[in-house]
């Protein structure tokens, strides 16, 4: 047998118990920050907004008229409001982020209002669904005491943040009989005050650039992973201007596909870092 004493003797860092307690607190919804980790001035927030009809931010602001944030004085994303409630039908853990300090008050107000509305819509939908499940359960003879409350979670992450760009991811997660997750991605160019699409990022040839990059990445996958892909995909058709993407910590665009768009459910939600042609 392999001697596993080097494994058993792996040194346990002093911070482990703090990390664990913090994780337990985070996981049970008590607080969301990681105090032991040095948080840089840039806290990337990912906001996803999939309701394209509300994306009416006009790009018509002249750059000269806006005061750009000074380097180091970067846009901040903070938790505006948190909901943690529980009853016999559901429990809710929701966090609403807001942006501030961009130097553009109108933009901030618009974006923040949009985020609030988006999250409120998600919560309303989830609560209505939870009530439906509960009513159906009771109507078919179930004992209310046996009903397993529906879990509703809304949270965000900041994917990328500089003085020019904010890339946010908001996810809405609901567990009932099956898990239900919606991801929203929202990348904002603070200079042009525009919500960016893939076309904005890569230019008119965006379809080809993105599709080629994805194809190259798939070639590096193992045969097992490749087998999970559907056989009749047209990448060019799937890559529209509305295709979800975010900027990762290196400032690269990462394209996101929903479950079942590219592959069977076991593959999850594939993401691809897009490399630009040299």
């Amino acid at each position, binding site marked *: *047998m*392999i*001697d*596993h004493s*080097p*494994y*058993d003797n*792996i040194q*346990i*860092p002093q*911070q*482990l*118990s703090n*990390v*664990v307690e*913090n*994780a*337990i607190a*985070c*996981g*049970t919804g008590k607080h969301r920050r*990681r105090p032991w980790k040095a948080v840089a001035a840039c806290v990337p927030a990912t906001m996803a907004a999939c309701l394209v009809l509300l994306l009416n931010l006009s790009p018509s602001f002249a750059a000269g008229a806006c005061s750009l944030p000074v380097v180091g004085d970067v846009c901040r994303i903070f938790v505006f409001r948190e909901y943690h409630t*529980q009853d016999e039908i559901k*429990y809710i*853990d929701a966090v609403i982020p807001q942006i501030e300090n961009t130097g553009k008050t109108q933009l901030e107000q618009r974006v923040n209002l949009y985020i609030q509305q988006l999250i409120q819509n998600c919560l309303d939908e989830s609560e209505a669904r939870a009530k439906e499940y509960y009513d159906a359960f009771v109507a078919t003879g179930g004992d209310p005491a046996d009903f*397993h*409350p529906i*879990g509703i*979670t809304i949270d965000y992450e900041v994917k990328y943040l500089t003085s020019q760009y904010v890339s946010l991811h908001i996810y809405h*997660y609901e*567990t009932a009989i099956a*898990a239900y997750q919606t991801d929203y991605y929202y990348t904002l160019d603070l200079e042009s005050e525009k919500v960016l699409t893939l076309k904005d990022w890569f230019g008119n040839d965006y379809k080809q650039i993105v599709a080629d990059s994805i194809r190259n990445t798939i070639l*590096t996958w*193992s045969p097992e992973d490749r087998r999970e892909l559907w056989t009749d995909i047209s990448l060019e058709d799937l890559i529209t201007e509305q295709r979800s993407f975010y900027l990762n910590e290196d400032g690269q665009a990462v394209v996101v596909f929903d479950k079942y768009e590219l592959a069977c459910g076991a593959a999850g939600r594939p993401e691809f870092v897009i490399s630009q042609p040299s």
Partner: protein
Amino acid sequence: MDATQDSPLISFIQENQEKLYRIAYAHVKNQDDALDLVHSSIVKALQKQHTLRNQECVRTWFYRILVNECMTYFRKKSRLIYLADIGDKLLETSAQPHGQDTYLDLYSAIDQLPSQLKTIIILRYFEDLKLSTIAEITSTNLSTTKSRLYKALELLKLDLGGMEDDRSLSI
């Protein structure tokens, strides 16, 4: 879901935190990243604890979350190396027969394994888990797990006769 301090999941986490750290560290060989993985898997586990079925073993369920976090880490760091490439790489390095003074070479060989095979070696030989448990943790079937184990041992140039026999592989 009111997770009190008495919750079995929280007790499991607190009692097994060093094990969880070792498993993460054995995968990523970096203290900060290992702490990060422990943190994110705990948070995820607590958020999903309603998916833990009554009869299911907490350890298996949690290890699955932790291993998945490790795999995500590897994908992000682009460390998933195509199996054929790794096979050649290991052939190039001098292959020492397994002996007491060469276990450091063995550990560095384990480090170079593709992430899925690394997981199986860690869970089988460091955590002493049964193959059927490992299959559950990695969400694969038993025969896939066995063949991955064989492949890993082959790449590590370990004598299969000395390591496993058919009787132990059948559990």
